[in-house]
């Protein structure tokens, strides 16, 4: 290693090599991914997030929800995500093409949220989600700073949380969600990747065997 320029050239080339391999090649493979047009439905998938939900994703991102929740379902034969009720199919790259900040996540301290709005038999509705955010549950903290305690005289605001028991506000008061809470809930209610792309269908066992034999 007596040759200085050659040494630095080697360093440069090594990193460029991995950059080209990992980043550029996967970009070449996935960068041009287009939405999938379904003739029978007459529209393409994935659908764009409605504006309010897109703003909600920014709230999701800046609060750091991704530290505890993933948004990626593993294929049914790999892990038990399907048994958890998190999704019938694996997440594929196409699911994320419209997202400016995909929140794949790396820790499941809470549940996976890829299909939160499509849970079976029944998904949480806006009211449940508001309460969950306001009160917290188990290991999930309460995000009470997303809500305001307001004085009411006369009619209670439409958006006020219907709280009972210990968490109920004082008489003459109501707990109303801030705008941030509202867009966040709109985002959470948009989380559903129900559409089945050709590449997301689980590989049938016989096909896998045939492929294995081919190799």
């Amino acid at each position: 290693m007596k040759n200085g320029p050659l040494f630095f050239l080697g360093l440069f080339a090594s990193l460029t090599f991995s950059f080209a391999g990992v980043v550029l090649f996967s970009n070449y493979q996935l960068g041009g991914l287009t939405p999938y047009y379904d003739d029978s439905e007459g529209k393409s998938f994935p659908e764009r997030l409605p504006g309010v939900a897109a703003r909600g994703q920014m709230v999701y991102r800046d609060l750091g929800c991704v530290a505890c929740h993933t948004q990626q379902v593993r294929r049914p034969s790999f892990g038990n995500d399907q048994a958890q009720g998190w999704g019938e199919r694996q997440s594929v790259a196409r699911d994320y093409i419209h997202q400016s900040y995909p929140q794949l996540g790396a820790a499941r301290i809470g549940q996976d949220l890829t299909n939160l709005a499509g849970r079976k038999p029944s998904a949480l509705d806006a009211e449940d989600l508001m309460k969950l955010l306001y009160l917290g549950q188990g290991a999930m903290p309460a995000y009470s700073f997303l809500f305001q305690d307001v004085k009411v005289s006369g009619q209670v605001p439409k958006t006020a949380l219907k709280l009972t028991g210990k968490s109920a506000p004082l008489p003459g008061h109501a707990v109303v969600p801030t705008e941030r809470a509202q867009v966040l809930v709109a985002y959470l209610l948009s989380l559903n990747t129900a559409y089945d792309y050709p590449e997301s269908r689980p590989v049938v066992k016989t096909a896998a065997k045939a492929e294995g034999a081919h190799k």
Partner: protein
Amino acid sequence: MSTDSNDSTAIDTHSRGPLLLLLGSGVLWLVISGVLALIASIQLHTPTFFADCAWLTFGRTQALRETAFVYGWLANAGLALGLWIAVRLGGEAMRAGNWVVVGALFWNLGVSLSLVGIAAGDASGHPYFQIPVYAQPLLLVAYGAIAVAGVLAWAGRRHETGFASQWYVFAALFLFPWLFSVAQVTLVWLPVRGVLQAVVAGWFAQGIYSLWLAPLALACAYYLLPKISGRVLPAYSFAVFGFWTLIVMGCWTGGRHLIGGPVPAWIASVAIAACSLMVFHYLVVFLNFRSAIGAKSTALYFTSFGLLAYLLAGLVEAVISLRGVALHAQFTFVEQAVQQLSLYGAVSMVFFGALYFAVPRLVGKNWASSSLVGGHASLVTVGVVLLVVALTAAGFAQSHAMFGATQPAKFADVASATRPWLLVATAAQVALLLGNLMLLVNFAQTVAALVPFRAAANSVSRPALKSVLS
């Protein structure tokens, strides 16, 4: 535990201003990140802790802790130790010391700005790259100013023959801006689409560890061990292969976090293969350092602990990257355990070792208190071991609960299964914080001995600045 300072040289005393500034800010950030880590750790088992404070949601404290640790402590300390080794092995007094001072000030300004930004919700959201958009260029420029001294040390080196520690230092100094600027372009200025962001982020995060922090730690180890033990490293001629394996393969292992994810399967497959190939690098490191493990000086104790953790982390990575294991380890606290083993157990411990060796030479005096040195050593050892064990156990409990009999798993059960271990992890964070406070106090007292000589130090650095500017 001896830290004799007999071989303090003119090179050391000349470069002490900039280097002690970097080291001091590093230790300060270490304590700050310790406080943040403690908050994050408590939040895991007591979700109500700081729940009312929007600035400290768990997601934000995690990002804050990580940024203060990596860009505050590891970067400052690593750059200081790396430059110190580069200058010493170059055999010439440090040039452009004032550039280092200015760079260090702006770097720390950038890190402070990043922390405020993350607390306000501006984190970029990528691991090891949480720095908000507006602080990124500042950090890059500040890094450039600090690295000027490294470039000049390379250009002015007296001996043509490179030592292993020199390769590692210069590789780290040279590759960081490459990685950091590419990540800025592909994640922030012209972001790639969809899941590609996760691919780039994985490549970058692995690069930060494998091509920046690990080389800086290895440079310290390759410098210190032969120097303290006075013996030539066994199998030293293999070191070059270990070096290039790390540099060439390092970044390819980043895709192991995406196993089973919504990315092409080859990304994970290549990462798994790269993790196995990296075992060769760890083998070389082991062969080189096998005789040094367990020696009795403070610096050697920390360094050999760090090297053992480094080897262990490498082997664990190779094992948990296998698909069958990854299936269970993925998304659990095991990932955090491996991260702590690498960043705290390996890199930080080696840095501690080098710091205990370097500071007395830079100051020209021994550490102010040897009992604080001993206290730091024992608390940090207990803290790191406890933290890694507790997080691993929490990960196992979590995985077991998620794959358990009741499907779908109740997250309340998962939380109660992991809770005892998370409490242990909090205890470990307390030990680490106390230990690092001892280091901070000891560092401050040791450096305080220099204060009367500040005027003299200034007069030395002025001609240096002139020679750079002319």
